[in-house]
């Protein structure tokens, strides 16, 4: 009997960058292959979107009426569903339209906007179906995906660190860009996972990995204001890749309204 774990990788509204992490993991992916069968993984050439699987990795946000129907089918066909990346966990960059005049944007971009069948909002997978595990990041990394896959093979819960970026920054002995440069770094409210990539090259964190546990977004935003950032710029720090994550959304909207009040 084939005891391999049956795995599907599905794509919704997204850039494909997250599922690419599977292919980027190279030799480690090959080492897992005796225990894993990719049933559906279009980027790797396997096409069977409606096959039942043990684990489905879902990339992308729910952005069209077709997406809504399709995610229901994916859920029905999957014993364990993992939402991967900022789009699937928080609605993605495209959720910026949720607070915007989406019709005007559409008219500005497309010659025949009436033919675009988009929902009024872009939303996370968990807003539509039950999700067993969320892996945050824009994009997620190889280690996270293989770790989750491996945990399913061993039948244990994945142990993904949920510290803030700051702790990883300090473990790597990077100099704090917020304190030493006054840069508007999102590290103190952001979930670890990237290895403090940006601060290590003297750039402020963009919050790619979404809100950390117990984040104090308002206190960080207030600090950005003390550092001289204008309200609109503060709002943009939060209303970015993970703009629809509730804690970032709330902080961003507060500062955007302050900007509007002064405008």
């Amino acid at each position, binding site marked *: 009997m084939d005891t391999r774990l049956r795995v599907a990788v599905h794509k919704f509204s997204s850039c494909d960058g997250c599922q690419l992490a599977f292919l980027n993991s190279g030799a480690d992916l090959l080492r897992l292959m005796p225990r894993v069968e990719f049933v559906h993984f279009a980027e790797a050439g396997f096409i069977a979107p409606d096959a039942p699987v043990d684990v489905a990795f879902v990339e992308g946000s729910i952005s069209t009426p077709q997406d809504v129907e399709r995610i229901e089918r994916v859920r029905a066909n999957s014993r364990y569903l993992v939402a991967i990346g900022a789009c699937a966990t928080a609605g993605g960059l495209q959720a910026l339209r949720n607070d915007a005049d989406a019709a005007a944007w559409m008219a500005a971009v497309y010659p025949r906007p009436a033919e675009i069948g988009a929902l009024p909002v872009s939303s996370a997978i968990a807003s539509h179906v039950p999700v067993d595990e969320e892996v945050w990041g824009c994009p997620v990394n190889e280690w996270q995906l293989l770790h989750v896959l491996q945990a399913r093979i061993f039948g244990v819960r994945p142990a993904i*660190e949920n*510290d803030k970026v700051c702790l990883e920054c300090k473990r790597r002995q990077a100099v704090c860009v917020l304190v030493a440069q006054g840069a508007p770094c999102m590290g103190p409210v952001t979930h670890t996972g990237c290895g403090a990539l940006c601060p290590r090259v003297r750039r402020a964190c963009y919050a790619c990995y979404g809100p950390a546990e117990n984040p104090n977004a308002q206190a960080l935003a207030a600090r950005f204001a003390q550092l001289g950032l204008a309200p609109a710029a503060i709002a943009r720090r939060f209303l970015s890749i993970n703009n629809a994550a509730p804690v970032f959304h709330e902080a961003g909207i507060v500062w955007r309204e302050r900007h509007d009040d002064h405008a």
Partner: protein
Amino acid sequence: MAATGFLLRSHLQDLLDALVAVGYRCVGPQVRDGAVCYDTLREAADLPWGWRDAQNPGTYRLRQTGGAYAFAWANGPQGLKPLLFAPRELLQTSIRAPDGGLRFAAPVASVGAMAVVGVRACDLAALRLLDQHFIGGFVPDPHYAARRADLFLIAVHCSHPAATCFCVSTGDGPRAEQGFDLALGETEAGFVVFAGSAAGAGLAERLPLRPAQAAEEAFVDAALADAVKAQTRSLPSRDLRAGLFGNLRHPRWEAVASRCLSCGNCTAVCPTCFCHGEGEEVAADGASSARYRQWDSCFTQEHSAIHGMVIRADTRQRYRQWLTHKLGSWHGQYGRSGCVGCGRCITWCPVGIDITEEAAAVCAGTP
């Protein structure tokens, strides 16, 4: 302490060369990414000559003054801690053997002898606390012990405290009094050298020292006296257990939690915070596993997670845990406060929370 001699500025390289000649890797302060950081030091010319720092709550800036001094700055973000208690290190490996059993190994990395140049009194005090914690107990930590065994310390009397420093109030500085091999007092012309150990005296014999003049020693003393006067912050070095544990419901905890990011930067830069977590990294094929330990912080969720629950879920509880341990229950554990007055937690807090202010506010009214 009587001076051993005087080392001309132009002979500072001789000190590094002498250390290398007897087998040390030299580590010393250098400017990197806008801060004074410790790194391997080969050339005396790479020291932070002419650099001055400006530190305030949540702010650190360096500027080049063109001045003649190499050590006219207060500590940067690192103490000795990262050099001895590695931020992340391998504790143990397990390998699945062909017979189905597991083979365990606990390698201790060979690090070689290290000499650290530029250590301040606060960090020497912190080192004594780390020693107590890591090698003073029943089960010495082999990784810390290996790095500590061959450590040569060249202290510098701290002449330029930052606005965030308060070592005078904790009794830990600014003069390096103990725990070093050599100490340097910087002057315009060079360094008054003090030997603090037999190894230090032995190394001093290899240096082209001339006798220190009384005026040079007086200059160093005067600089230290000025450094004492320059400190404006203070923390009572007395046992704050009554004040802290008697005020666990003080509204100040809530107030500080509203500003605190719970990011753990204070604990990461603290030269005495030693908390760590452990984790297992399993190879993709499941044939081997590596157990790591890495710096953790009482400000993380994982730090207080036990099966089925997180004990300190909110920031109020986490900040209170840090302060009551650092300034309170350390007295019972280690016979003194865990704070050495280096001020790093104030400077490197992204929102500039001041431990001296918070402790004073919570303990106000408690004798």
